[in-house]
């Protein structure tokens, strides 16, 4: 295939061009309550091409090989339109030419597991949830995605990398009278089938939390000092800071570029942030991004000072910084854009227990339930929380959603504990879904967060 891609590239009239052919094999097994709702194992494929001519740069996606020449023609037309209309002047930062084959490091290859075993495993975990008190229903799925990617560009790079991601995840719903409460559950990752084995305790715990939420009171809206657990700290890192560290977000907003200049003191001394998709065994791991650049660890913030950001080749050239290998697509249906893989807030030296007396009165907020960002503003939901009074953890509260401003929140982080945990399930949406978005950190103490309540 790599040779065929090279032949396709040889016919393109552009200063730079690349092509990615990808086969996406997906297996889905879904349960709604005790009923099996879907079993689907299939394979689809397609091509993504990009072309730079002059200072214009454009992309096109096609699902049929015979349309590849047309795709390159459209990409060149798009590049010409950019240049002809006084558009952004795109350059690509230089990167090494690479020829490589990369197979995933898997502890048990899920592609070799029969579908019947996948159904059985999902059913078994689903039954654990349904067997608990006051659980009304579930929505649980097995999801296996294998992306086999072939990449080539006119500079001579040629890469074949396969990524395999598995998860058993979904939602458990508890019900009492007219009150419904739901909690998310997820196990899995990018290191193979074994990440799904022996995880009964996780499903038991989640069903228990859903049941306890029926007795929890809605949180009262207001401004609180809070402790975030690693899942929530991870979502803060991803949603609030991480997206702003993606260079394409601020590339065309001059005032934000000035605000996010490297060297700017944006957070308290307690804050360190890292993006590291080279970490083995983690959901966010990959070797090459979708423009053939090896991913590297990036220290984004150190002692509250901005020290790095995530780049494609185009944004690296625009900012005069080094490429980082973070230009990633969901799959063959999309052009690559700047994305986070593994990102986390660095642990500190304090024990988790020591944060509570420092909090005094406030909220202990646990386990993310979605988040969204728009520039410097963010919101994220929590699955549950506890009131904290005088440093002691009290009753459970529900319906917790937080809003904040990145810059004020970074300044209000006053403690990071020494524990550390990363998520097992991704799903970031930035036009495309990134199932390898992987986040976490330690417990974190933050003052003055706006909580919406209900």
């Amino acid at each position: 295939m790599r040779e065929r891609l090279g032949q396709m590239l040889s016919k393109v009239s552009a200063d730079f061009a690349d092509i990615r052919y990808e086969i996406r094999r997906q297996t889905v097994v879904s349960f709604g309550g005790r009923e099996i709702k879907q079993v689907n194992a299939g394979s689809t494929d397609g091509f993504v091409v990009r072309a730079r001519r002059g200072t214009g740069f454009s992309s096109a996606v096609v699902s049929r090989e015979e349309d590849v020449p047309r795709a390159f023609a459209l990409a060149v037309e798009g590049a010409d339109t950019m240049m002809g209309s006084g558009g952004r002047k795109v350059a690509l930062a230089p990167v090494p030419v690479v020829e490589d084959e990369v197979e995933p490091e898997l502890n048990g290859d899920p592609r070799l597991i029969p579908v019947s075993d996948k159904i059985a495993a999902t059913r078994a975990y689903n039954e654990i949830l349904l067997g608990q008190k006051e659980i009304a229903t579930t929505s649980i799925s097995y999801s296996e995605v294998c992306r086999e990617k072939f990449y080539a560009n006119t500079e001579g790079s040629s890469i074949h990398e396969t990524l395999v991601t598995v998860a058993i995840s979904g939602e458990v719903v508890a019900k009492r009278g007219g009150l419904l409460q739901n909690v998310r559950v997820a196990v899995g990752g990018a290191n193979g089938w074994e990440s799904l084995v022996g995880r009964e305790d996780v499903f038991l715990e989640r069903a228990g939390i859903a049941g306890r939420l029926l007795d929890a009171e809605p949180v009262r809206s207001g401004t609180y000092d809070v402790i975030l657990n690693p899942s929530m700290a991870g979502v803060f890192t991803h949603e609030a800071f991480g997206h702003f560290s993606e260079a394409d977000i601020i590339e065309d907003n001059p005032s934000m570029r000035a605000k996010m200049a490297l060297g700017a003191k944006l957070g308290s001394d307690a804050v360190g942030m890292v993006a590291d998709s080279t970490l083995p065994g983690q959901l966010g791991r990959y070797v090459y991004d979708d423009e053939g650049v090896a991913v590297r660890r990036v220290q984004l913030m150190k002692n509250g000072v901005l020290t790095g950001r995530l780049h494609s080749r185009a944004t690296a050239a625009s900012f005069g910084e080094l490429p980082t290998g973070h230009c990633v697509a969901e799959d063959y249906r999309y052009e690559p854009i700047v994305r986070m893989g593994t990102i986390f807030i660095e642990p500190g030296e304090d024990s988790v227990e020591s944060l509570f007396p420092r909090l005094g009165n406030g909220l202990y907020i646990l386990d993310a339930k979605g988040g969204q960002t728009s520039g410097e503003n963010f919101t994220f939901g929590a699955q549950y929380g506890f009131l904290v009074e005088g440093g002691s953890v009290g009753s459970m509260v529900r319906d917790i959603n937080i809003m904040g401003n990145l810059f004020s929140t970074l300044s209000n982080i006053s403690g990071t504990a020494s524990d550390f945990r990363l998520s097992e399930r991704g799903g970031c949406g930035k036009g495309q879904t990134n199932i390898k978005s992987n986040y976490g950190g330690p417990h974190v103490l933050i003052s003055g967060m706006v909580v919406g309540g209900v």
Partner: protein
Amino acid sequence: MEKLLEMAMDAADQAEVFFRAQNITRLTMRNGSVTETSTSMTSGYSLRIIRDGILGSACTRNLADRRDLVSNAVVSLEGGVEAGYRLPGPHDPASLDTFHPSIDGLGYTDLAEVCRSVLDSLKGRVAGQVDCSGGFEKKTTRVVNSNSLDVSSTAGGFYVGAQVLFPATETSIGQVRYSLDKCGLPSERLDEIVELYSRGLEEVEAPTGRMKVLFHPHAMNTLTWRLRSALSARSVYFGTSPLIGRKGERVLSDRITFVEDPHAAGAIGTTPFDDEGVPTRKLPLIRDGVFESLYTNLDYAARLGIEPTGSGFRGEDAIEGLPAAGLAQEGFEPGDMTFDEMVSSMDEGVILMGALGAHSGNIINGDFSVGMNPGLLVRNGRIVGRVRDGMVAGNVWDVMQRVIGVEDRIHDPSSWARYPCVLLDGVNVSGTKA
């Protein structure tokens, strides 16, 4: 497709072949420059078979190996997914205005021209950075099945959107327009951007408490997401809808009529049949506050013993997965207040122009808690500024009992929704003001 259907019927009691081809072209201008151009041309086939009441499915991007596709669908029968429904028979789809051939002749230069025109119209009228984007789309669908159904349609349209960023932020005031033909943004919409942007320039702190909140169409998904969840036949089947057993009851203010209208004149996203080939129709879901109908695909219609509503849709990636209960063109019916009258009637409150986090929270229970992005603070009937770090929260079945007014005009914030502004009373607002 016919050959594939024939092969599938050798292994099944019923079979369906779904085809979708989609071409999308987009252009983005940020800060006066074209920053992105992209095109996507994809197509594919999805096969659904039913044998002895069990469902099998498979998909492909091409028909190079039909036998392999049928074989994959047959293998998936082992999952034992029950399918107690009959695929629809032949019918003559309604004749709708879903596609104008002029779309076929458009290119990047048309998009650049439209965006440039919008930028020129706003030049000198706002202090903030202006971003603009446009695009056009063509979508062809065909559904054939073993019950002699063979329906096809072509749909598509054009959109243009503009937003003005508040200084040193990515928060903006914007407008978007969808049309069956190439279009620009009319001057009255540009005037609205300028007016609301100017009034929101000053950042202010919002109080915490219950007050009036005006939901702008760009933030309406906060409310309608919860309504859609409760009105889905799936939610009723699994016992997670607050509307179970309440058909015919008043569940919202009598000022609210929530409708699915896949035949809405002039809208893009209309369709004469759903992705299972079932004819679509205008479907009042909640009429004058009274719960009138669920929406359903074939599967949940059979499970609940109700008629299909033509609401089986396959989502963004049409060929993977199965049709689920969904809506094609939802909206609230217009009311009788103007936007200015609504603002004038607010002693203290917030206009929610955009919401962050509409997708999170306890949706099945109807709860929402969203960040204002942005929210405009109103005092004594006048917009006095843009709220810093504020949230709006509540339960949709509670707050939509207290509808003060519904705007007399329909906006199209997305290709699949048409809403007026809705003014609610007694909604929980969290601000930073002590």
